[in-house]
């Protein structure tokens, strides 16, 4: 996986992470690196677009709330956080983790915060998929009308 793909992966994960769970894992990691905020946490909206007929021309569907933050660590690494919802601490943590993932502590951070998050989100998703699969219809034919 390329560097960009990896970074997309963790940034997306941080965006979707349940706020309280991310806060707990981050606190458990126990690092509060020195940093300057390039863009303090800011709550805003993103216009979500769809496509006519699912694959046609784009149209504006409606907005969603997003909070973003950008930070620079003392070592110079720059991190950005764009997370769903309106939690400023969540966006700041996401930006710090994005920056730290570009430093030598990436592996430790990944093991302590990102991997558990990814596993939990996967589990939630597969549980839901299983619930949906349990509502799949098995058709059976009662009488064939051929006579």
């Amino acid at each position, binding site marked *: 996986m390329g560097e960009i793909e990896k970074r997309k992966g963790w940034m997306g994960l941080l965006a979707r992470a349940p706020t309280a769970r991310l806060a707990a894992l981050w606190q458990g990691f126990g690092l509060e690196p020195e940093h300057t905020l390039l863009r*303090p946490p*800011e709550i805003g909206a993103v216009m979500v677009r769809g496509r006519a007929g699912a694959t046609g021309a784009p149209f504006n569907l409606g907005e969603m709330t997003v909070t973003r933050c*950008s930070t*620079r660590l003392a070592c*110079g690494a720059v991190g950005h956080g764009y997370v769903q919802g309106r939690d400023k601490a969540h966006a700041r943590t996401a930006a710090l983790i994005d920056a730290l993932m570009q430093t030598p502590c990436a592996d430790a951070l990944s093991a302590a915060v990102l991997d558990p998050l990814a596993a939990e989100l996967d589990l939630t998703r597969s549980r839901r998929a299983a619930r949906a699969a349990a509502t799949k219809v098995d058709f059976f034919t009662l009488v064939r009308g051929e006579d």
Partner: protein
Amino acid sequence: MDTDALSGGFADAPVQAAHAFRAAMTAMAQPGRIRQVAGAAPPAPLSAAAGTLVLALCDADTPVHLTGVHDTPMLRDWITFHTGAPLCAAGACSFAIGVWDALRPLDRFACGTSDYPDRGATLIVETDRLEPAGATLQGPGIARQAALSLPETDVFRRNAARFPLGLDFFFTCGDRLAALPRSTKVTS
């Protein structure tokens, strides 16, 4: 994006943007009156005053046009990161930034339509000298008359003649600015 372009924004955006907006609004309401603004530390060659105006006034709905020496990759990145304003050609912009000679000719900027006169562009003119001397200003927001060091007068006289259509101007120098809306009559 160059990471140096990521610094120099408002540290406390709600408060600083409100102060900057108030300063810009008062400047427009009192044409020719020079005031100080603070908050932005943009990359060269943009002045602190022009940078503060950009942070306070520009967003994704206000396309920006950069001219001449101001059209640098660093400044483009700075505006994109801090305001989200799209960069565009002169004819499509809401705000244009540059020194006077680079901004001319002015007829390439939108001056609004009779249905929507507010769609006229605002020009942020970077100057080396900004003093209450030179051309004479009269009109709304000016008690009797004011004076401002304008690069020329004829073009502003013609601009005012098109009212309610026309362009609006900010003149910036270091951390100081003054404004010249389309409603102001300029004589030499």
